[in-house]
């Protein structure tokens, strides 16, 4: 058999670029070496240095491939949900950012993952990028994204060497611009000093004011237009850590039949609405669904709106307190009176 030529599938990470990254590698390496976990889920570079992919590290030597930088948007908690771990009883180390940890808290509150089999490495987060915003500023392919040491400038470079600078805040994912919980709400160990919150006090909901300002007819038209391109690939729900009946999903079931098989705007919206209601009270707007969607549907329109309603009506935020009861498993008289 001929020698196979090499196309790089994962580019090497190199020396640690920041203290958190170094700490994550150290913790992962130790956990693997001690046999505390079978593998550690973190992030590594994909086929170029402009994107991160989930990394499953089982060899301590490979822990040096782990990266921590604003490219690490994936919420790795989705790999803990039912039927994901391989083997099913694996002891898993997992890296979580602030929003990721809130989805883990939601799963723990419902006793859907076994705390004893987890080793949670908390990653203080200063925001992750919307790579698509950067990508669309170029006609050529972006292959490298570098952040300046003071975290103000982001430099993206294409294959042909064309470079552009962006302000750090301009290329953040929209939920990161209003993040109130950048540090994990639950972790076995923290990989570094706490990151400052972007927002203190009352939450704001990027993009929702604009949506709410529309008339009912305009909202209908917006949703119809937005969901017309959905290809029902289910990447959104599979990327979603708190959407765990994924292999028994009512949106695909024939009995009962709640969603038609016909792929069209109204059925697509029906499917997404079911998802929205089903994760209500567990969804912290981590945006994993937005990032996974291949046709870039702004799914946050539904989920963020739901979270805003839950906050305004019940004063509830998902996954911020492990000891709290999930919103739909509790009732307080003040809730009915709207006096949270």
């Amino acid at each position, binding site marked *: 058999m001929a020698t*196979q030529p090499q196309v790089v599938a994962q580019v090497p990470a190199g020396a640690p670029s920041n203290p958190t990254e170094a700490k994550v590698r150290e913790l992962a390496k130790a956990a693997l070496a001690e046999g505390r976990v079978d593998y550690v889920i973190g992030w590594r570079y994909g086929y170029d240095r402009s994107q991160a992919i989930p990394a499953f590290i089982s060899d301590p030597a490979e822990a040096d491939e782990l990266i921590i930088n604003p490219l690490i948007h994936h919420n790795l908690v989705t*790999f803990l949900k039912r039927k994901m771990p391989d083997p099913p009883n694996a002891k898993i180390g997992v890296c979580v950012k602030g929003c990721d940890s809130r989805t883990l808290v939601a799963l723990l509150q419902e006793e859907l993952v076994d705390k004893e089999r987890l080793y949670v490495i908390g990653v203080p987060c200063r925001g992750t990028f919307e790579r698509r915003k950067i990508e669309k500023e170029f006609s050529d392919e972006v*292959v490298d994204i570098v952040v300046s040491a003071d975290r103000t400038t982001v430099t993206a470079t294409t294959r042909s060497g064309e470079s552009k600078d962006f302000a750090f805040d301009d290329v953040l994912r929209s939920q990161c611009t209003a993040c109130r919980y950048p540090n994990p709400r639950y972790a076995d160990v923290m990989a570094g000093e706490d990151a400052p919150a972007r927002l203190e006090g009352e939450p704001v909901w990027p993009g929702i004011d604009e949506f709410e300002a529309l008339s009912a007819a305009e909202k209908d038209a917006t949703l119809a237009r937005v969901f017309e391109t959905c290809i029902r690939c289910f990447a959104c729900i599979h990327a979603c850590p708190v959407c765990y009946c*994924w*292999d028994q999903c009512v949106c695909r079931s024939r009995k009962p039949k709640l969603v038609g098989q016909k792929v069209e705007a109204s059925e697509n919206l029906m499917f997404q609405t079911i998802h929205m209601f089903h994760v209500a009270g567990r969804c912290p707007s981590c945006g994993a669904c937005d990032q996974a969607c*291949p046709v870039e549907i702004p799914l946050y329109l539904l989920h963020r709106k739901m979270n805003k309603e839950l906050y305004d009506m019940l004063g509830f935020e998902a996954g911020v307190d492990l000891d709290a009861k999930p919103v739909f498993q509790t009732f307080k008289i003040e809730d009915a009176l709207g006096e949270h």
Partner: protein
Amino acid sequence: MKFLTTDQLDAFLGYVAGQARVVAPVKDDKGVVLFRPWAPGMPVELDVLLSKQSAKEYVFRQSETYLKFGYTMEGLAAAQTESPEVAHAAATEAEVAAVDVAKAQDARVKAFETVVVDPVNEAPAQVIFGLRPCDVRGFVQMDNVFSGYGGFYFDPYYNAKREATTLVAVTCRDPRSTCFCTSVGGGPAGTEGADALLTQVEGGLTFETFTPKGEALGAFPGFAEVSQAQSLYAETVKETAASRVAPAFDLEGVRDQLRENIEHGDWHDLAMRCISCGTCTYVCPNCYCFNITDEIVETRGERMRTWDNCFNPMYTLETSGHNPRDIKSNRFRNRFSHKFWYYPDKYDSLLCSGCGRCVANCPTRIDIREVVRTMGSPRPVTVTGEEA
């Protein structure tokens, strides 16, 4: 070979639209490029190399109605108003149940007596413009499945559309890093299956035709004769493009090694970061798995074919509840083995045209090239599901 100046492109599409529906890559308000029915005034996007999704939807519809049916109200009304005395006459609960079953069966028989079936197979003439050569090969590879290759099934729905469709390809000037058409027998200026091929050169596009359908488009009066310089330029564009596609793997031995490695533990490792969604198969120009279901509302319904995908947890779920591909890595293995082993066994070609959409659009960037390289080569022996 003819020449179309850039400012004549809209006129050309308008001319074609006068005879058939035109489908072309267009950018939506989010900047996402998708194949959409074209109307005069819509800018066609030829600079973004690949649309997010292939154009297979326009021949192999994601939801396709085979037939519409309905039962007339008499049948149903009769079933609902069946005389209640029969049930009252029965003494025991078991007898009541037996009568109910008989009644239900009667109602079903009556309903079938009055069922109205209306077959649907719409296939208006269409021209898909702005395909890449890999997209066109996707149709050629799907043809094997649906068009009776080797005496297998001939699908009237797929073929009606396929026959009514003209495929106009555009040479890829600047292949992406995820492209690997040359590793699977194609090329950025490949003409297999194309009715016509355009190549972007200075000032416009050269236009070549390969079939009567392509030649029919050549009747557009706005074409100029191609100059020698333009035709040489086009040749250079094609050669440069081909040289920019990095070799991804050597196909030799891949099929045998996939067979050899079917139970290999490395499948588990490769599938680890897969979230088991269907993005790769739904953006793919030749993944063709489908479901057939009835969509019924009261007394009317449609029987339709909809895309399925092997990452769907319910894919191959049997009525008994057993699923031979119950775990993620088994479903994962299916996609690659199908493309490079099962399909080649049956149709003597590959089920991959190297567009790389699955690589670029995968939420976790799973790389089909890496999978083929890894599992298509001899592996160190391991036991399934355990560490090497």
